[in-house]
């Protein structure tokens, strides 16, 4: 069974807040799913190449179905110039920004990234009312 610490570690990696109760729930649930997945260990994969995508370029070009095993993706690029399409995207920008919870001067606004910095700021302002006003 997964330990409490393991569950907490995964949640931290996933940036997912958990309640105390959920830690125990995930310990049990994830462990039973992982036990089921253990079944994959029965398979001999020593000489097998991994598959990331199922459709190959060879196949897409009309090759033999049976010959295909892994996809060769082709990047889609465009010239970095202003044209009709990019102007349309500029109009879209406004629409996208409207969806953001907090914006300022046409940018997304985020909370403080560095803990220490935020703390120093707090100490300097010492008054809780002022800190609250900054939030707004």
């Amino acid at each position, binding site marked *: 069974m997964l330990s409490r610490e393991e569950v907490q570690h995964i949640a931290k990696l996933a940036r*997912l807040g958990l309640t105390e109760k959920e830690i125990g729930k995930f310990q049990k649930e994830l462990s039973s799913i992982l036990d089921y997945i253990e079944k994959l260990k029965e398979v001999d994969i020593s000489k097998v190449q991994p598959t990331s995508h199922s459709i190959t370029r060879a196949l897409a070009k009309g090759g033999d179905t049976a010959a295909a095993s892994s996809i060769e993706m082709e990047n889609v690029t465009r010239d970095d110039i202003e044209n009709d399409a990019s102007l349309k995207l500029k109009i879209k920008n406004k629409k996208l920004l409207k969806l953001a919870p*907090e914006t300022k001067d046409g940018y997304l606004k985020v909370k403080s990234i560095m803990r220490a910095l935020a703390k120093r700021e707090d100490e300097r302002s010492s008054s809780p009312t002022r800190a609250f006003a900054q939030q707004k």
Partner: protein
Amino acid sequence: MKGGKENKVLFDFKMKLTGLTITQAHQGLIKKEFSALELCKAYLDKIKEKDKEISAFLTINEDFALSQAKKIDDMILEGREIPVLAGIPCAIKDIILVEDLKCTAGSKILENYIAPYDATVIKKLKEKEAVILGKTNLDEFAMGSSTENSAFFSTKNPHDLTRVPGGSSGGSAAAVAANMCCYALGSDTGGSIRQPASFCGVVGLKPTYGRVSRYGLIAFASSLDQIGPITKTAEDAKIVFDVISGKDELDSTSVEKPKLQTTNYKLQTIKIGVPKEYFIKGMDPEVERVIKEAIKKYEEVGAKIEEISLPHTEYALPCYYIIAPSEASANLARYDGIKYGYSVSNIPTFQHSNELMDVYFQSREQGFGPEVRRRIMLGTYALSAGYYEAYYLRAKKVRTLIKEDFERAFKKVDVIFTPVSPTPAFKLGEKITDPLTMYLSDIFTVSVNLAGLPALSLPCGKVGKLPIGLQIIGKPFEEEKILAIGKILEVDELRSSSPFANARVKS
């Protein structure tokens, strides 16, 4: 009672309208038997009447649908030729973006998200003048097999309101089955089009990976996701598929259909493979009987039936439950409470915190439901340092073996027949408490996604009042073939058990 009689006539007329297939509705429109506005209103009335009990729709798009219908009527009046989908009312799974309409993905985290653009499939439908009635319910982020994981409400199966419609495209399948739309779009990552189509007695097509652009489809597992139609007949599925498919420069994994050498085939001489691994203990014996009867029908029209083996079948589900959650955990990292969607930074009680990390943790904690959190946790674990090789890499290798099973089988047979699901629609609440039991309802559908193949779910009979679906799996890019093969069964008498058999008008 003249008025009463007139109402009855009007009622019958509307009943007939909502029972039409795409082809029939199109014929009716161009022959001016009814207008696009009448057709649209008939569906909107049907939704008002039936959706109270079925709960298939999350958003109804009445004004847009009606104005679009009027536009089609003007085109017809002007004597212009209209595309087959013009004026035909449809519903869209609420994980596909329709510009300026809410798109929730069934999640609280996107509860107020207004789609800023059209998905490529929607752009294509709009080019053909489709009438979009609304957005349908689903399991949150398409993660589930019953639509009970929706953050908003559960959808009911139109054939039995105490049962689930399947999932994750449960709202789309239920809406088509209850004649609340003429056709719908769904998405299929591990069976999410086919299993609800099977449970609701409608046709569902999961296309070859890459055949339909995923641009504007909210991502769940990008190497498996595919958009497809849910319709009343195989013929309708082909009509919708032909419109939405094709390479798209906005989706680097989309591909052009290759020229196949084997376009000529006689349906009467096809070889059908039936994998022995798909008839296992634990399967409902009544489902097995219905499927075997359907297979027999094909034998009677001259098809050769051959038992085949797909030896890695039993590893498909564990393989899927590594790959899909891994990809999901990466895809769902974008919901961070910063760019869009639910954010604690808007919540007054949160104002005491001044840290970005808290925004991430708490927005995601409050915004995601239990199944989504479970899969994010599972995927993050499988991808984390020290476990990547044991889980994710191993699953990718097993995926190769599953794919090779099909490649070997398709050297011997043209198509593969299996059940879609080991059981008919189950009761609401029956499996929701045990995630692993719920996962097992995908046991016959996930292999197809891992191998990237096209597959059709076709109603082939009933157990009691509950429909059963036959799964027809094809070689890559052979959607046309599996749809043509499906059509054989549709014209068969078995079709008379379909809910649409009585609703059809004479053509």
